[in-house]
């Protein structure tokens, strides 16, 4: 049993330290995943906190069949999908977040990053998640396929398509 499995078992028993350790180790990867998926820092922060609330609730139902990381990112992905659905129902909020993105980017990031943020936001959720898990989390195609309940060749296609779209967007800039 690895340390994360022990932590999740501890969390299920109400162990505060196990929860603190899990948050400390996973807040970075989970926040990066949400941030690049939503292109909004504040939303990613909220969603990261919600994610740990959900982990606490779900810790009792965790079964060590798959890797902890697969289980954690499945929950993170479900949260992300819920959030994207909510945003789709609130078109005005989308316009606002794009405006927020623009102001944030002008202060903190380069023009290239701004273009990539906008293009990333337009990508289908499955393409985006596959690309993020591959590049950010350095998962194998097999792991991504397992988490996304699909096959490896489809994952490769999604990542290829996502990369192609992003490349086309930044070509005039480089």
């Amino acid at each position, binding site marked *: 049993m690895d340390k994360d499995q022990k932590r999740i078992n501890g969390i299920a028993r109400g162990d*505060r330290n196990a929860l603190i350790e899990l948050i400390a180790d996973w*807040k970075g990867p989970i*926040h990066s995943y949400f941030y690049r998926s939503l292109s909004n820092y504040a939303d990613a*922060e909220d969603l990261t906190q919600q994610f740990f609330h959900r982990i606490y609730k779900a810790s009792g139902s965790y079964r060590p069949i798959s890797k902890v990381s697969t289980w954690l990112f499945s929950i993170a992905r479900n949260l992300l999908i819920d959030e994207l659905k909510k945003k789709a129902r609130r078109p005005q909020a989308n316009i606002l977040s794009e405006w927020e993105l623009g102001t944030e980017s002008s202060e903190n990031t380069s023009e290239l990053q701004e273009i*990539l943020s906008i293009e990333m936001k337009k990508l289908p959720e499955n393409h985006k998640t596959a690309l993020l898990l591959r*590049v950010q989390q350095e998962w194998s195609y097999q792991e991504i396929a397992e988490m996304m309940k699909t096959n490896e060749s489809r994952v490769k296609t999604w990542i290829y398509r996502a990369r192609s779209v992003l490349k086309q967007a930044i070509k005039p800039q480089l």
Partner: protein
Amino acid sequence: MKKVDMDYDHEIDRFIKCENNSASFQLDESKLASEILIKNKTKTFTFPFIYFGLPLAACLVIFFGLIIQRNESDVNLSIESESVQSPAPSFAETDLLPREIEILDEWLLASPESIDFFSVDFDSSYELLVSLETIPLP
């Protein structure tokens, strides 16, 4: 061409890994852990109320609602039946004396033509009189 492609990939990877992101994510894990634990303790306390108290209250509301509705419908039915029965008063409730009823019966029996009693509105005294006038007296 391949080098240019690698540059694109490199830029994309740098972006995805949030390498240029100057604002690092600040989250106090012990504070968040405390929040989560407190919130879930409060939820555990409210659990019996939500899962047992609310459905019980809903059942009681439905039960009493049905009783009230049933009582109201009973009252309505009795009012309706009273209003249906009222247009057909018996001769006992009329102001006619027994002797007058007998005379009326004799007149009606002596009539050579049969009178369609159902088409006559006996509530209206005028129609009763008109129908009686058409009967030839003995």
